[in-house]
């Protein structure tokens, strides 16, 4: 599979009164064509910021993309001026985003038609009538009943799930090559989540798009993503195929995350093990591993040496850890 998007050493910093926050601290990853990739991590680990940085949507000030490269279709997107025409040509047309909060991601004073048409008129050069036709088609596609009349409604006349369907329609409207969904189902109830994830998966398959699923919900990525990046404190700590990450985790943080999710196929009497401690304060971070204070497997080397880089533990599976955990250390039986 060809690489669609390649991010190298992306760094995004925020100036705050307390000091410089390295929200994204040198992450590198890639997305293949027609691939669903999960980016997992707890709140504040930089997963959303890293995705916003790709399209240069970080509010500046206080945010600043301090370094790195984002290669897409042979160009480094970070070289483009943030609001210049080249960047705008990518946004919404080649790479589109779906946001977390369907309740606030739609403009309350514009009808659904106006909002769906906006990007299509801009990027596809459609006139109003054609854009409206396509808007209706898209709404039908994402399963909104009576699309012909609903298209002129305002966002508040839609429920949360319906709005997120509209957002998905908007994300698809210009046939993008990559859709970044930033916690697309977090604000919805569980049944709606399942329906919408299924919908997104169908749409991605149908339009041959790649999808980045940013989430803190391991269940979401387990089912739909082919590969997973686990982020902690602004860095990627482990990456691999979904199977590898779930069956053979190699970073203590990933192990901790998996231990605090109940499993239907395991021993139901087993207690869930929380990760002790709190996520680190990103201001004035020490150079060594950010997970160190919470890590049950730490060794002396972790304290002495700076944060280890991602190293391959097997094919297509990397972890940033000095402790080379093995399945037997974690009590995992070879399957």
């Amino acid at each position, binding site marked *: 599979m060809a690489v669609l998007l390649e991010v190298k050493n992306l760094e995004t910093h925020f100036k705050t009164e307390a000091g410089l926050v390295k929200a994204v601290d040198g992450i590198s990853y890639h997305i293949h064509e027609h691939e669903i990739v999960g980016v997992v991590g707890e709140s504040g680990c930089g997963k959303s910021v890293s995705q916003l940085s790709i399209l240069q*949507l970080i509010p500046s000030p206080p945010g600043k993309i301090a370094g790195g490269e984002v290669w897409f279709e042979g160009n480094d997107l970070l070289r483009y001026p943030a609001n210049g025409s080249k960047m*705008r040509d990518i946004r919404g*047309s080649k790479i589109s985003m779906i*946001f977390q909060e369907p309740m*606030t*991601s739609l403009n309350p004073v514009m009808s659904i038609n106006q909002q769906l048409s*906006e990007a299509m008129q801009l990027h596809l050069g459609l006139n109003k009538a054609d854009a409206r036709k396509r808007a209706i088609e898209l709404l039908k596609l994402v399963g909104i009943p009576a699309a012909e009349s609903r298209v002129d409604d305002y966002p508040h*006349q839609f429920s949360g799930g319906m709005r997120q369907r509209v957002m998905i329609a908007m994300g698809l409207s210009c046939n993008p090559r990559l859709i970044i969904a930033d916690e697309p189902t977090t604000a919805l109830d569980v*049944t709606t989540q399942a329906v919408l994830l*299924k919908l997104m998966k169908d749409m991605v398959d149908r339009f041959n798009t790649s999808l980045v699923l940013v989430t803190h919900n391991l269940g979401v990525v387990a089912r739909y993503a082919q590969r997973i990046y686990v982020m902690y404190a602004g860095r990627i700590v482990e990456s691999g195929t979904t199977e590898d990450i779930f069956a053979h985790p190699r970073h203590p943080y990933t192990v901790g995350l998996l231990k605090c999710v109940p499993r239907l196929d395991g021993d139901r009497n087993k207690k869930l093990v929380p990760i002790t401690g709190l996520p680190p304060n990103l201001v004035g971070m020490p150079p060594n591993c950010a997970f160190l204070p919470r890590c049950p497997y730490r060794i002396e080397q972790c304290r002495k040496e700076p944060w280890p880089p991602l190293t391959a533990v097997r094919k297509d599976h990397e972890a940033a850890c000095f402790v080379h955990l093995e399945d037997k250390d974690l009590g995992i039986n070879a399957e």
Partner: protein
Amino acid sequence: MAAGNGIAMERFEEAPQRVSGVRRFIRVFMGRKIVMFGIVVIGLLVFTAIFAPWLAPYPPNETSLRNTLAGPSSAHLLGTDSLGRDTLSRIIYGSRPGLVIGLIAVSIAAFIGMTFGLLAGFYGRMISAVIMRSMDAVMSVPMILLAVTIAALLGGGLKNVLMALGIALIPPYARLMCSQVLTVKQNDYITASRAGGATNLRIMLAHILPNCFPPLIVLMTMQIGTAILSEASLSFLGIGIKPPDAAWGSMVSEGYQNMLRAPVLSIAPGVAIMLVVFAFNMVGDGLRDALDPKLRGTL
């Protein structure tokens, strides 16, 4: 795809009954009696201003020195002033400068102020600092004093009063607009439209501006009242509409000299000012309720 989304479908069917925007606007706007009263008063004002020559029983500047300071009678419903001019006719003609100044001065101020506020709120940093600090400087001078100074510098007359008030009324718009923009631009839908490739100009005009409107429209209608009152003050002070043209402010001022002999000379134009200002305030309130986007489509 569409199958199996039981919950979403259920919610959809429970959505409030849909009401077209215009119908709802009219229902809410016209629903309150006091707002209707305001509309009627403003309607009468506009009607009077347009058809003044047909409505007024006498020409407004026709003097009659044999019939000065006459009390109300069937010939002169509101009596005559110290030069024997018919008070009713002068009030009818006086609606013209009031309305014109109210509408135009507020339009000028709102346009300039909102542009400033939009730029300051959207771009922030230096642009915001320069614009908002100069607005603060203008605001530190009481509005009426500023208008008096400008009008005195330029000389009286309709055009100069318009300029004076147009400038003096700018700061509240810039401030309100700026604070509105700061709130609105935090919204996810602004990031979403940026992520969709919209230009800064489009984000400002299509996404931010309409979401800032409701409080600004309220401010505008209320400011029309203020502008009319300020014009009256300027005319009262003798630097507004030039005599002998009729203006309510100058009528109050002239009548004031004969307050004890013919109180109606001051009271009648005073009541006219009060009614009109009150009417604009009430309509402003009604508009605020009717334009609230969060209530749109329901009720």
